């Protein structure tokens, strides 16, 4: 495994979107690659069986949603897959209606076609909006962390300095209490103590 370890960094870029620290996140990386390969195989090899094609596509999207559901961290994936399921169902209805004649049928097909366009645009817009929101959220989080770090440094080094310096001097250093007594005992006081 050690010989392969450097090569695993190659996959890191793929994993980042899928939370690599989680087991499910790493499964999602493999599943995304594998399911896309399956989708292409289904589209190319089952060309004559449209209903079978669309059913498998719906099933694959459903499996992806099931993988994404725990902890609700893959909200974008869920949204996208739901969009694809809607389009697949639309195609299924369009496929069933395409051989039947009638003005009402053609109107319905046209409406379904426009719904398909709307869903496609919604998926693209959804991704753009999520990216923008994520960008601002991460920026805000980063700023908050930086502020916390700035505030925390005094508390982190306080115990170390306390060991090295008298308590009053430490408090004075950290502006915790304005010292009214001299920080260090005077020389006379020290001499009297020694006596």
């Amino acid at each position, binding site marked *: 495994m050690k010989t392969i370890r450097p090569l695993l960094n190659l996959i890191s870029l793929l994993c980042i979107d899928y939370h690599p620290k989680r087991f499910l996140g790493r499964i999602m990386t493999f599943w995304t*690659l594998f399911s896309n390969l399956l989708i292409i195989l289904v589209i190319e090899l089952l060309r004559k069986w449209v209903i079978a094609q669309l059913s498998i596509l719906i099933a694959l999207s459903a499996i992806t949603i099931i993988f994404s559901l725990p902890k609700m961290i893959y909200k974008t994936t869920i949204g996208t897959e739901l969009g694809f399921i809607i389009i697949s169902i639309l195609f299924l209805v369009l496929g069933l209606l395409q051989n039947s004649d009638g003005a009402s049928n053609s109107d319905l097909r046209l409406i379904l076609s426009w719904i398909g366009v709307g869903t496609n645009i919604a998926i*693209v817009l959804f991704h753009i909006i999520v990216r923008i929101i994520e960008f601002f959220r991460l920026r805000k989080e980063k700023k908050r962390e930086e502020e916390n770090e700035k505030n925390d440094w005094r508390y982190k080094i306080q115990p170390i300095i306390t060991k090295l310096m008298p308590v009053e001097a430490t408090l004075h250093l950290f502006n915790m209490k304005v010292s009214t007594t001299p920080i260090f005992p005077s020389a006379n006081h020290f001499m009297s103590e020694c006596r």
Partner: protein
Amino acid sequence: MKLINVNYLTPLAACDKYTDLGQFGLPNIFSSIPRFSNSQASTSSNNNKATDDNSSDSSLFITNAEGGVIFNDYFDHSFSQVFLDNYGGIVFSTCTTLMLYLLVKVVSKCFKDENSKIKKILLSIVHSFERSIIMALLVSRYMYLCSALILNYAFIPLNGTYQQLSLAVAIIYTIVLVFILVLSILVVFYHVKIEPR
């Protein structure tokens, strides 16, 4: 979705046309090299699965007169049997990126001063190449890659230098694809600390 054999009317067809990025508009320069023949139609006769006759329903794939594999009868969405015809633009851009990467790496080694600003910039470019660009190129058109590979292996076109070169490139890409799939399986069971890029 546009490849599914359903008559989904003009609005959706137009939407698919404008939202499909294809090969990012990148040129397939391999097909324009002189003495390279780009004969698609002749390839279909080599394979039992393929047929030039559109009316034949017994075959797995249906091809048109030019040798393109038809997926949607209503909108004539077809793909070539030759790998480079479907994916040549991306292969070209990948080759260009690799050449640039090697060039930058060689130039960065020429600078011996470690504190040089130019060397630092060049090294950061090399790192960004290693970390993201090559993988992004491969993954961004992943479905196109899979489709081109499947069609290439379904017909195995070997007529002329262009198609032979195409098969060679397809084999290289298959190895890369299998390698990445195996790595992604290994990653599932082996957690390595991954730093955000």
